């Protein structure tokens, strides 16, 4: 081997007239490269050939089961059938020829559906045949900015580290980008600008207080709710009080008890939504200029599941904000209020009444584009504002209802 100036792969060549040791070194390196490629190839070959062989086996077994047509599908039929790739003979499967040549595709050994062989997006992507139902295990997608399932995520801004400040900014963005939800229907651009596979942050329930918390705030919440952080709690309280001044209509305290409860009939839910609508309008007016930002996050009307998630999410973020801003004394009042909603008056209620006025009109205007708005429930038009929210919506309406119920009733 040392006599030649290269190894088996023939890629690394010693220059002409190189010394013996030089030649040897080149030959060794060349052989090592050959071995690496050889091993990689063997591994892929093994995977592929075994997969094809088992595909051939599954196909012929299915054929055998179909031919025998026995009532017990599990039993091994005593028939002899064959396909191009394999023979089935009384429970035994024998290959015919090389499965790499006889079998062109791969069937999932578990669900017996064909495997999708190319990713649908990103590197090496090919369009799948729409007429075939593939196994759900797809090749992973390799595309910058997208994950292995082709999902993308809400941009987190530059830098990998997230600080509290960033998080709050994002939250704000989230919450005001979601408040103008109904407008999404009229705008129509929301669906286009936000990819359907965008991952958004869900909410989770705190195991102690059963509140619904946006996941990005969960640790913080649990720290103060479960953890012993009395110091934190007091600091947070101080922050709430100082924030109390600039807390306007949004800062309606949500009594925790109402969230714990099961959703109540919508009779009471009518009024609060007017209030919420009005808030939304306010938001719209204020933040029209960054509507592009909102649109990015807007739920696609077509994707109901997605929408639900986001709506829930909105509740959570909204509630959280409220919670932070509510001083403890207020919440006590509201608890009372909740128990006896009809008679009670709350300080913030007047504000509501003022802002509420324009809401029905706007609501109706919006309603044209929203199919669910035309439902006979127009009396309680608040309910229609969030058609797909389900139980969560009721809960939300209930919670805000504690504040603004008096005007309507």
């Amino acid at each position: 081997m040392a006599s030649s100036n290269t190894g088996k792969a023939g890629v690394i060549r010693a220059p002409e007239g190189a010394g013996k040791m030089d030649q040897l070194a080149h030959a060794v390196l060349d052989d090592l490269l050959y071995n690496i490629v050889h091993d990689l190839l063997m591994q892929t070959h093994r995977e592929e050939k075994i997969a094809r062989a088992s595909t051939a086996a599954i196909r012929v077994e299915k054929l055998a089961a179909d031919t025998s047509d026995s009532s017990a599908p599990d039993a091994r039929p005593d028939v002899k059938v064959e396909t191009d790739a394999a023979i089935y003979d009384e429970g035994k499967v024998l290959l015919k020829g090389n499965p790499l040549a006889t079998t062109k595709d791969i069937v999932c050994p578990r669900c017996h559906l064909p495997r999708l062989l190319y990713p649908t997006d990103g590197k090496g992507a090919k369009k799948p045949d729409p007429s075939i139902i593939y196994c759900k295990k797809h090749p992973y997608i390799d595309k910058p900015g997208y994950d292995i399932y082709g999902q993308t995520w809400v941009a987190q801004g530059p830098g990998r580290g997230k600080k509290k400040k960033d998080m709050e900014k994002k939250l704000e963005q989230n919450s005001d980008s979601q408040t103008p939800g109904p407008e999404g229907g009229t705008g129509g651009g929301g669906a286009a600008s936000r990819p359907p596979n965008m991952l958004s942050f869900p909410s989770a329930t705190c195991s102690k207080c059963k509140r619904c918390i946006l996941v990005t705030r969960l640790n913080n919440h649990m720290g103060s709710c479960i953890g012993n952080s009395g110091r934190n709690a007091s600091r947070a309280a101080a922050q709430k009080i100082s924030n109390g001044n600039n807390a306007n209509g949004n800062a309606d305290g949500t009594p925790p008890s109402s969230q714990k409860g099961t959703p109540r009939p919508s009779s009471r839910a009518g009024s609060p939504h007017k209030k919420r609508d009005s808030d939304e309008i306010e938001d719209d007016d204020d933040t029209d200029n960054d509507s592009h930002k909102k649109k990015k996050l807007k739920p696609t009307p077509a994707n109901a599941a997605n929408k639900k998630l986001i709506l829930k999410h909105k509740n959570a973020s909204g509630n959280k904000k409220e919670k932070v801003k509510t001083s403890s004394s207020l919440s006590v009042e509201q608890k009372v209020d909740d128990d006896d909603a009809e008679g009670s008056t709350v300080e913030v209620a007047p504000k509501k009444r003022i802002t509420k006025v324009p809401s029905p009109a706007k609501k109706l205007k919006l309603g044209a584009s929203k199919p669910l708005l035309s439902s006979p429930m127009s009396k309680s038009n608040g309910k229609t504002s969030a058609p797909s929210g389900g139980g969560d919506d009721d809960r939300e309406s209930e919670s805000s209802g504690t504040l603004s119920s008096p005007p309507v009733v």
Partner: protein
Amino acid sequence: MAARPTTPASPKNVKINSPTPGMPLFGCEHVQLLLSNNPDVINNSIQYYKMLLRVIFDGNPLVPQTCKGLDGAITTSLTSNYLCLQCSAIVPEEERTKHGNKKSHRFYVDSRSGSLFCQVCEDFVWDPTLDDLRIRKMGTGSFSSRKRKHEEMFSDAVKDPLKDDPRYISSNTTIASCRADGLRGIYNAGATCYQNVVLQSFLHNPLLRNFYLSDGHQSSDCQVPHCLSCAMDDMFQDFYALENTNGYTAANILSGFWISEKKAFENLVTTKEQDAHEFFQFLAEELHERNGDGKKPETGSEHSCNCIIHQTFYGKLQSQTTCQHCGGVTNAIESFLDLSLGLENLSQKRGKKASKSAASLTLQECLDEEYIKSDKCEYRCRNCNSSQQARRDHSIKLLPNVLSIQLKRFEFKQGSRDRVASKISTKVQFPLQLNMLPYTTRGRTADARESQELRRSCTYDLLSVVEHVGEIDTGHYVTYSRVGDQWFSFNDHRVELAKKSDVLGSQAYLLFYIIRSLA
């Protein structure tokens, strides 16, 4: 011609694997011919294949790599030779066809991997029976089926129905969707990436996965409120049974963590990152308490427990103290959850020797420093009855199934006023495959180091890497985990494909190696 042992192995009866649905009985028609002969031929062929595998994997690799060429010259090559399955010839690739035509021998065994080559197919053949033997030999060094196959550990989660009665299994289990492959992100609940990375490394640990997916801890049967093991059980279910591809919200883990918070972290601030290693220790201890003998693991003692955490992570460390005065030896053994390797001293030493820019370490150097080199200490010798200088040697007495290594990147430096935490960002190179034999107590003897068998039983494969990027206060944790042969990066709720070079180039903080063969 290379000398090859020709003594036949013990004439045990070997069996062809029984037919399993969805798999052909033989690798190709020609293997089928060979293995459908009379029992003697079958027996001999399989025994001879096993012997060849022993030559390849147990013996000196020079033997199968050496062959006699056409001109009678004996050559040893780096590339594969082919060992004839039907006679004792070893031929290079070029002469395979010639040998086959002359002797009408059809099957050859690759001298580097043990794979079977069929001359008639002109292709490698993966026969279920023979390849099974090969994989077993390669993984555990033995043909016994009592031991776990190397492959089985990394194959699809609930795939293979056990051989004894597949119908029993299928009627009592639920088959998860093909989509549910355990690859999901975990949402960051506000500075919790230090938890996410540890959870991801647990989720892709085959031992823990099998434990939880086989109802090792059933959350429905557990009475403990806010049990972390139940939360783990739920999480494994969500990852491996549901089709969801979005992130997972580890709310139960988080609340379990907060409820038992005082034990783990002293001054926990919700908005601040914590140490992933501390969380790893916390989680391991917590899960041990839920699943184990209930005793708290004491540091510095030999604690044996057969809970899943101990079976997975715990090994034993021996420190031998030798008195320099009388030569008396004392051994102390303690259990360890992980090996912590200091970087600072080593990188400083290195910095003095070489120019500062070239200061990069290898994992093996760090291990050498702790477990091969000895250090001196003051020691009260019982024999001499006085305080003496002593030499202390550390070695690993019992290797764990999953070896976790912490590279001490965070250190408190004694500043002028108070202690300042700082990060050492020295690059540490770590291998995909790690041999721990030199660091074991048994590996101290020279002939143990020569033993292929022992070497193989101490071989580890990289399973997960927890990387810390950025500065100490503003940093972020990312996990790389291997599923099968594919690496993935888990950055909170983002899961992406990762290249091996990404993994090996990362600034590792925690490393998880899994033993190649479960003995």
